[in-house]
């Protein structure tokens, strides 16, 4: 409890604004608006710009390629969004989770001949990741960044030891290959998976009590605990959602290339984070959505594609994405300050 005089500590709550409406129309604030709505504007502007000025962007082949490349990262990002909204920063272990999922799918299905069994095995591994990460962070209150960085190491270590670093190739006539090549009209099936995952996780976040509690926990964990919520389960649940994204992302990646290796998923931690924060989900927790992450994925993928088409190298792309993340999180922090009551 505080031991200062009441009048001296509670001045701030007295100065807080009257309720909206009572205070008259609120002035337009650019920073909060940018942090909240900017991504829609930027994405539309970027796509229009690309379509008009960049040769080769608006072709069907190019757009299909953009989606094929971005689907696995997008699926990982929509899952990881739960961790970010719960104010636990991010799940770095998606790197090893994606690799493990991809390798398990091909290795187990190659050796047993059963894709279902392979998917089940990969699912089991994802469950372990979610529970271990969630337990360390949610129950032991360990720092999420350190925990997931460490579980990445543990996971990659196990994977390299078990696979011997070998590359697994799927059979050319199996269902995995068929899935990887399947199209709906002109669009690859991976794109459908991304959209379905987005819709599913968006529903979970917005409409279920679990999603509601994840947001509440991210906004104020102590108030959420004192509302009688089992907060440990909320954190474990958020990491399970991230594990689900990495699991499906790994499947899609393996099917797309029909190969799997322990280096799959390298850089997914960072690229997923880029999509999430550029989409406008707050790293302070409590604010954000799965649909925003999808927009962030589109933005980042289109931007990368533009740079490739314009002949800019990977170094430039990397630099640009890094700068964008700094800009997005700075905007988030500034908007929070400007909009603070």
């Amino acid at each position, binding site marked *: *409890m505080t031991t*200062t*005089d009441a*009048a001296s500590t509670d001045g701030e*709550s007295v100065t*807080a604004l009257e309720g909206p409406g009572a205070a008259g129309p609120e002035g337009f604030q650019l920073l909060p608006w940018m942090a909240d709505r900017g991504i829609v504007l930027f994405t539309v502007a970027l796509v229009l710009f690309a379509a008009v000025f960049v040769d080769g962007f608006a072709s069907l082949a190019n757009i299909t390629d953009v989606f094929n490349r971005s689907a696995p990262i997008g699926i990982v990002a929509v899952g990881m969004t739960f961790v970010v909204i719960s104010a636990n920063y991010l799940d770095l272990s998606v790197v090893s989770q994606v690799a493990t999922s991809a390798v398990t799918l091909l290795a187990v299905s190659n050796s047993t001949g059963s894709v279902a069994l392979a998917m089940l095995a990969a699912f089991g591994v994802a469950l372990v990741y979610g529970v271990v990460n969630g337990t360390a962070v949610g129950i032991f209150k360990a720092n999420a960044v350190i925990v997931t960085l460490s579980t990445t190491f543990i996971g990659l270590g196990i994977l390299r030891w078990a696979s011997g670093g070998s590359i697994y190739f799927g059979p050319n006539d199996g269902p995995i290959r068929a899935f990887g090549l399947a199209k709906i009209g002109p669009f690859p099936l991976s794109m459908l998976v991304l959209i379905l995952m987005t819709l599913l996780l968006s529903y979970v976040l917005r409409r*279920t009590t679990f999603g509601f509690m994840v947001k509440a926990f991210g*906004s104020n964990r102590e108030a959420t605990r004192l509302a009688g919520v089992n907060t440990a389960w909320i954190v474990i649940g958020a990491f399970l959602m991230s594990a689900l994204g990495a699991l499906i992302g790994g499947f899609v990646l393996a099917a797309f290339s029909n190969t799997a290796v322990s280096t799959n998923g390298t850089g997914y931690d960072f690229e997923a984070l880029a999509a999430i924060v550029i989409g406008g989900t707050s790293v302070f927790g409590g*604010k954000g959505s799965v649909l925003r992450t999808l927009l962030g994925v589109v933005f980042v993928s289109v931007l990368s594609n533009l740079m490739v088409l314009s002949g800019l190298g990977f170094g430039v792309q990397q630099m640009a994405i890094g700068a964008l993340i700094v800009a997005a999180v700075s905007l988030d922090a500034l908007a929070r300050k400007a909009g603070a009551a």
Partner: protein
Amino acid sequence: MEHEQTHDGAPVIEATGIVKRFGGAVAVDGVDIACFAGEVHALVGENGAGKSTLMRILAGILTPTEGQVLVDGRPLEGGDAKASLEAGISLVHQELSLVPEMTVAENIVLGFTPTRGAGFIDRDEQRRIAQAALDEIGVRVDLDEPVARLSVALRQFVEIARAIARQPRVLILDEPTATLTPAETDYLLAMLQRLADRGMAIIYISHRLPEIFALGDRVTILRDGQLVRACAIDELTSDEMVDLMVGRELKRELETHREDVEPGPVVLCARGITAPGVDGVDLDVRAGQIVGLGGLVGAGRTELVRAIIGADVRTGGTATMTIDGETTDIRSYRQAVANGLAYVPEERRTDGLALTMSVRDNIALPNRRRLSRLSVLRRGRIREFAMELAHAVELRPPVITADVGSYSGGNQQKVVLAKWLGHEPSVIVLDEPTRGVDVGAKAEIHRLVRELAENGTAVLVVSSDLPELLELSDVIHVVRDGRIQGTLDSSEADESAVMRLAASGEAEVPA
């Protein structure tokens, strides 16, 4: 004995016409205070009277809205803590401000760590300064011991050594004895007397009147941010001082008590509760009864209620809730809430509300089970539910989609109440339910609390606001040092009776 000599010459520190406003609330309202070399100047007043705010202004931590602080007749830049330190003003904070992981010596010189060229710490000089300061107050402690390993009392003395190490001319102490035993207190008082005899000006805040009479030369009494009396200490008796602190004319306002309600069976029952700051408390709250917990800030009331309901860890004792004849142990806070407990915490902004979420979502949070089907939120129900409760607590304006953070303190507190009203609690615990809340909202909140009791809820209220405590409670337990010092029935309670139990502690430090 000292004030004959101290009154010659100009005061070392003098503040004139100090006003401090926090938004609309006036914390300090036109106060003058002066302290001479060699004088112990006591500053007393109820919780919230503005003592700490005034001292923080003197120490340059806060900028006064109006008025001036003079040191040796020269005005001091307001709100410049560094300038105040350099002018020789040291404040010993109410809350310990030591760095637990650092050693005693490192803490004592923190902020003016001696260096040799190139920024390297001069460890010998550091130890010398620290040892000198400790010697001056006559405390023996290992300089290399991390502060975290010291007892609370020793930390308090290290804190004082830290202030002394800067060789101040004015030493301000804010409730230094709150965590000390009677023997340690006696030692501290003797030490301060020695410092004053050597010419230091000491301003001493305490709720414990015997200390004030033992040590003080002059006293300044504040009430509601205003100066009520400044005089030599021997012009007043202890009772007169209490009356001045609480305000004679405020005493026992018009009886607004509920008609005699026959309380029902015991709903919340606590036995032998111990926890950090809580020392073996028994407590019963009956259905339809409002039990008040009075006492000074730091007496252990918040710790007590949180230990009872399981919000913090209990080190001993049991608590039960009896609802519809069925008694269950409170093993965890979550389970207590599921059984019908509601808790309005002391700090609504950090513990009570998710400020970046809407009013609607805050109200829905503890009621999510009844507002969902198969874990899917029923959004129409939620909207109706939140709207109904927003109207019940008279939230103004009742915009349930607005972020709670955009509302005033009073309205925020109404949202906290609304979310728990929706829970239809059998037991509600409220900690400082109207702190920082405007008069209108305060009346609303009081009405809601009474309504809850009339509907059979067992109510436990912690309040430092004496009129509020007297107005609401059927029974008042006064807590001091983590124990119930006395119990007053609503018919016999008045502000002076509560304050005497809370502050004077006849059995403790002899005057």
